[in-house]
């Protein structure tokens, strides 16, 4: 952050933020408050915790909470590693960087719904994955990957699909961060006896820390919203908070229940963001 030009009036930055804040108040905050109102009223319109307690006492609530958290905990490191690898390739010395860049960004053009349809056709029993595995002789009959009796298998498929779909955004963020690391630092590491892994661990990652932090927060915030891929691959047997919120609207037509789930999702994501911030505190030793 560069410190500024000739002494601005103290109010100026706030004035500049005003339009965006006002916009988000209108289009985010106010419907959100409405939704909170719905969460704290019952279907018959009385204030209270009816909707919240109905949500918590639902058989699917706690499994949904756990699946949501497990998905996040498994996905986050995998996606970060993938995004880092992709970003290193894009910013590295290989030829054809434009091509790699393009390929790694392609999933940005695929919507959640589309990704769900696509990965379902891959993992379904008579789908692409089994075709390929059987073609190379790894299996001799189709495997049912989307078998709800094997929850880890189903979660695995969701992780793969989500990693495929949503890593590009992290790549954009990380490439930006990598490009801001002066080349000197990397060369200094090279000269001072650091091998590729040491360079990664002792120089690149620490310098990339603010960017990684941003990437993690973005990912955490968005992760709790994902439902289309989960529904496509997990069907009705795998629940997350987001699929439950969605189901509350579409199937049970209960706006109160859905809002209650929305509230839980908000709280859980904020807690998760807090944890990320606590785990990776911003240090400010980087003034040049």
């Amino acid at each position, binding site marked *: 952050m560069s410190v500024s030009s000739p002494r601005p009036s103290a109010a100026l930055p706030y004035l500049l933020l005003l339009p965006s804040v006002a916009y988000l108040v209108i289009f985010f905050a106010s419907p959100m408050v409405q939704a909170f109102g719905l969460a704290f009223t019952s279907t018959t319109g009385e204030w209270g915790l009816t909707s919240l307690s109905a949500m918590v006492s639902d058989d699917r609530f706690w499994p949904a909470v756990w699946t949501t958290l497990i998905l996040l905990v498994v996905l986050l490191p995998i996606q970060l590693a993938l995004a880092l690898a992709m970003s290193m390739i894009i910013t590295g010395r290989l030829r054809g960087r434009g091509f790699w860049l393009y390929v790694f960004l392609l999933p940005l053009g695929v919507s959640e719904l589309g990704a769900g349809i696509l990965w379902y056709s891959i993992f379904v029993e008579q789908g692409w994955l089994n075709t390929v595995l059987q073609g190379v002789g790894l299996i001799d009959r189709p495997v049912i990957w989307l078998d709800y009796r094997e929850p880890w298998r189903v979660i695995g498929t969701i992780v793969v699909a989500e990693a495929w779909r949503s890593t590009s955004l992290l790549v954009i963020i990380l490439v930006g961060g990598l490009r801001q690391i002066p080349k000197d630092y990397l060369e200094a*590491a090279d*000269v001072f006896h*650091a*091998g590729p892994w040491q360079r990664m661990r002792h120089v690149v990652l620490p310098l990339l820390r603010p960017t990684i932090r941003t990437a993690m927060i973005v990912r955490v915030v968005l992760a709790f919203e994902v439902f289309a891929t989960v529904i496509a691959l997990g069907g009705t047997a795998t629940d997350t908070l987001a699929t439950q919120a969605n189901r509350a609207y579409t199937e049970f037509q209960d706006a109160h229940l859905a809002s209650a789930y929305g509230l839980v999702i908000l709280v859980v994501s904020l807690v998760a963001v807090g944890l990320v911030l606590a785990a990776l505190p911003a240090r400010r030793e980087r003034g040049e």
Partner: protein
Amino acid sequence: MSDIRISGLTKRYARGAAPAVKDVSVTVEDGEFFVLLGPSGCGKTTLLRAIAGLETPDTGTVHLGDRDVTALPPRRRDLAMVFQGYAVFPHLTVAENIGFGLRMRKEPRADVDAAVRYAAGLVQLGDYLDRYPSALSGGQRQRVAVARAVAVRPSVLLMDEPLSNLDALLRLSFRSELKALAKELHTTIVYVTHDQVEALSLGDRVAVMRAGEIVQCGTPMEVYDRPVDRFVGGFLGTPPMNMLPGEVFGGRGVAGIRAENIEASTTERAGALAGRVRLVEPLGSQLLVTVAAGEQDVKILTPTDFPAGDGADVWLSVAPERIRWFDADTERALAG
């Protein structure tokens, strides 16, 4: 300790572009302070980076001692480097920065600590070991960069314009410190600079580069006094060598004369070149006087009590042995 032998090294950055370094062969002796000097874009930094292993040459080889290191990555070359922008890691303390290379080599902790203390002591950073670079001044960061390089006890120490980001005063004091440090370390040092004063004051030998080639390589006094061509003569020295038509001094070609070798007099002398003072610039210890002589401007250095002011008539004379003759066409120095 080792010598550096470079032979036939060429590096092009883009196909079809002029080479940044063109067929350079040079040997840096063991323990020598060797300066690469030249204007920006002359290829000196590229040559240094090729020694470091940060650039892979298109052709040619680099030997450090007996080892052919041409294909080795930097970390396997047993050298150290001070970067122009220092490249002091912002996320590490001073001590961690200085010990970085040793830790990467997985040396025992005690050895690392000892080396860090020694190197920090050399550059007077002993009291700052726990600080982060953001809490240091530019000069202190520079010292960290030097200490980090010294700490690994490299057989070769490379420096890429290490003083260029410092202010004038710091630069001067640090220059002396560097010279003292080099004496103490006995390490082979390759030092890149575009500042001829640094080159002359620090180097055991100076290689002057232009357009990817080493034009002249010799002791500072050699390159200063006997430049091999007009370029070297014009590049070294403040002010640069005067280049005057040879006929004036009864010869052919171009006469290159250093400002301090011209004697000026306010009274007419036989055989002296007549001129008129155009500009007087006091330099503190001396005056830099620009004299218009015929079509030419001649720069001379005079004592501060030189009596002529603007517009005064002066007569300039030079001892013939102080004239360096250049061929008018090839610009090469003529024998002598």
